[in-house]
C-alpha cells in the first residue's frame, strides 16, 4: 500500500513541472508517513513528560501530607523546606489524640459507614427487586417516585430535615446522622437496571419450584448481582465515610462525631499553625478510603461511572 497502483504513469513525477493533484497527494502522504515516523520519538518524549507531570501533580500533595504528619514544628517552618522528616515519630498523631478523641471518631466513622452503607444497599436491593419482579398495580408510580428523588439535591433538604431530627431529639445521635440519608434512589436505580438484565427463566424456574419472593431475592437475584452490589456498596462506603454537611449540622458532640467533622473541629482547636498535627489527622481521614480505592479500584470506578453509562 506504499505506492500507488501503476495506473498513474510513474515517470510523470520528475519531468512535469506542474504535477497533477493525484500525484501531489501521494507525495504528501509519503512525506507525512515519514514525518510521523520521525516525529514519533520526540512525540513520545513530550507525552511521557506530560504524564510525569500529571503523576507529580496528583501524587506530591498526598505524599507531602503524609510526610508532614511526621514532621516536628521546627521542620515544617524551616526555610529551605525539607522533604523527609528527621524521624518517623508519631508525636503529631499523639497530639491529635490529645486534642480531639480521634479514636472514638474513627470508631464512629466506621460504625456510621458500615451501618449506613449496609442498610442503604439492603434497602436498595429489596426495593429494586419489588419494582422489577413483584406484580402490583401502581408499580410504575412507585418507580417514578424513586426516579424523581434522584433529581432532588440533598442540599435543599437540610433545613426541614434538621428541624425534624431536632424535634425528634435525635441531634448528636447515630440514628440522626444515618437515617435521613438511608434511602438510596441511585442504588435502587442501578439495581433495577441490573435486575432487568437478569435471565427471567431462572427466577421463573425458582417460582415454579415454589420459592417465594424473599427466597427468590436472596437465593437467586442477589447471587446473580454480586458485581453490581459490590459497586454500589463501595460507592456508598466512600460516600458515607466522606459525608460532611449533614453530620456537621446534627452533631456537635465528639461522642458521635465522625472523622471529617472532627477534622474541622481540630482545625478550630489547633488553628492554622500546627500543620504537622493537622496533616496527621488528615492522613487518618484519607488513608482508609485511599487503601480501599487502591485495592478495589476497578469495582469502585465501575460504580462511580455507572451513571455515565446508563445516563
Amino acid at each position, binding site marked *: 500500500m506504499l505506492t500507488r497502483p501503476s495506473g498513474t504513469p510513474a515517470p510523470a513525477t520528475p519531468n512535469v513541472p506542474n504535477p497533477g493533484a493525484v500525484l501531489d497527494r501521494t507525495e504528501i502522504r509519503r512525506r507525512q508517513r515519514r514525518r510521523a515516523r520521525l516525529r514519533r520519538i520526540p512525540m513520545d518524549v513530550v507525552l511521557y513528560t506530560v504524564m510525569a507531570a500529571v503523576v507529580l501533580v496528583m501524587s506530591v*500533595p498526598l505524599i507531602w501530607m503524609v510526610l508532614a504528619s511526621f514532621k516536628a514544628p521546627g521542620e515544617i517552618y524551616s526555610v529551605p523546606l525539607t522533604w523527609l522528616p528527621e524521624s518517623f515519630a508519631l508525636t503529631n498523631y499523639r497530639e491529635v489524640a490529645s486534642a480531639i478523641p480521634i479514636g472514638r471518631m474513627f470508631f464512629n466513622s466506621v460504625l456510621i459507614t458500615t451501618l449506613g452503607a449496609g442498610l442503604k444497599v439492603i434497602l436498595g436491593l429489596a426495593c429494586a427487586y419489588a419494582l422489577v419482579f413483584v406484580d402490583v398495580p401502581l408499580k410504575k408510580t412507585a418507580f417514578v417516585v424513586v426516579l424523581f428523588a434522584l433529581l432532588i439535591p440533598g*442540599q435543599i433538604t437540610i*433545613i426541614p430535615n434538621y428541624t425534624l431530627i431536632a424535634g425528634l431529639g435525635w441531634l448528636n445521635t447515630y440514628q440522626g446522622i444515618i437515617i435521613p440519608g438511608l434511602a438510596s434512589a441511585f442504588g435502587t436505580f442501578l439495581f433495577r437496571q441490573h435486575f432487568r438484565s437478569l435471565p427471567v427463566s431462572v427466577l421463573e424456574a425458582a417460582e415454579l419450584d415454589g420459592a417465594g419472593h424473599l427466597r427468590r431475592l436472596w437465593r437467586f437475584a442477589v447471587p446473580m448481582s454480586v458485581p453490581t452490589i459490590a459497586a454500589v456498596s463501595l460507592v456508598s462506603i466512600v460516600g458515607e465515610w466522606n459525608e460532611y454537611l449533614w453530620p456537621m449540622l446534627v452533631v456537635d458532640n465528639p461522642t458521635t462525631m465522625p472523622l471529617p467533622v472532627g477534622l474541622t473541629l481540630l482545625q478550630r482547636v489547633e488553628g492554622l499553625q500546627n500543620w504537622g498535627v493537622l496533616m496527621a489527622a488528615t492522613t487518618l481521614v484519607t488513608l482508609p478510603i485511599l487503601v480501599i480505592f487502591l485495592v478495589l479500584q476497578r469495582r469502585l470506578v465501575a460504580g462511580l461511572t455507572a451513571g455515565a453509562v446508563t445516563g
Partner: protein
Amino acid sequence: MSTSPALAGAALGSDQSPGSSPAAGPPGATSPGARPAAKPARRRVKARNVAVFLMLAGPNIALLLVFTYRPMILSFYYSMLQWNLGASVARFVGLGNYVEWFTDPRTPTVVTTTVVFGLVTVGGGLVLGLGLALLLNQKLRARGVARTLAFAPYVLSGIAVGMLWLYIFNPRYGLLKVLLENIGATTPQWYSTTPWALIMIMIVYLWKHAGYVALIYLAGLQAIPQDLRDAAALDGASPRRTLFAVVLPLLGPVTFFLLITTTLSSLQSFDLIRAMTDGGPLGSTTTLMYQIYVEGFQTGRAGYASAAATILFVILLIITAIQLKYVERKVHYS
C-alpha cells in the same frame, strides 16, 4: 420484567398440595375450565403481592417520602416565612424572602461568585479531563499508574483535601510558595485576599475532579471504533485533523453528559469552601450553596435560607430538564 398471570397462577398451584381440592383446579390458570375458580385465587395472589411489595419496597420509598419529598415541599413553604431556625414563631411573608434576595446588595456578589466558580470548574474540568483522557489513551508505559493517581483525589473527603491544600497554599511555609519563588514569582495571600481565595478553591476543585471527567472521557474514547481513525488516517488526515474532525465530534454526547453532571456537582459543592475559607474573605467565596448554609445555620434565618435553597433547586431542575430532553431526543432518533 413482570410476573405473568399464568406464572402467578402456577405458583399458587404449586403452593397447595397437588389436587387437594377440585375447586383449586389443576395448576395453571390457562385451562378455560379453571377460570371461575381461579378468580378469587388470583385476587389472593394480588393481595399477597401487594404485601410483599410493601415489605420490600415500602421502607425505601417511605424514607424517600419522609427525608426527600417532605423536605422539598416544606422548603417551599419555609421560603415564605420570616422564621429563625429553632424559633417557635414564624410570620408568613409570601414572596418577601425572594424579593429580599433579589434586592439584597450581597446577591450580585453571590451570583458572580457562583457563576465564576461554575464556569471555571466546569470549563476547566472538561478541558483538563479531556486532555488527561487523550494523554492516557495513548499507548504509554505505566499509564495505569497515572490513571489511578488522577482519579484518586475524587474519592477522598473534600474536607481532608481542602485541609491538605490549605497547607500547600500556606503563604509562609507552603510548598507552593517555594515553587513560586523558584520561578521568581511572589506568593499571593491566598487565604485572605479577594480574588486569590476563590482561585485557590477552584484550583483544588479541579485537582479533585479532573480525574473523574478524564475517566468518563476515556470510556468515551474507547467506544470510538478504531476503524474510523484508521479510515481518517488512510485518507491522509493528520493526527490533529483526525482529533478535531473525527474524535472530538464523536465525544459530543459524552461532553454533554459531563457538562450537565459537573455543573450540577459544582453548584452543590460545599466541603472545599468550608474547609478552606468558610465563605470568606468578605464573602468572596460564598456561592449560592454556601449562602444557604450561612443564612440557615450561622445567621439562623431559616426562611431566607429556604428561599435561596428554592432558587438553587429551580436552577438545578432546569439544568436536569435540559439533559432529560436531550437524552429523550437522542433515544428517539437513534
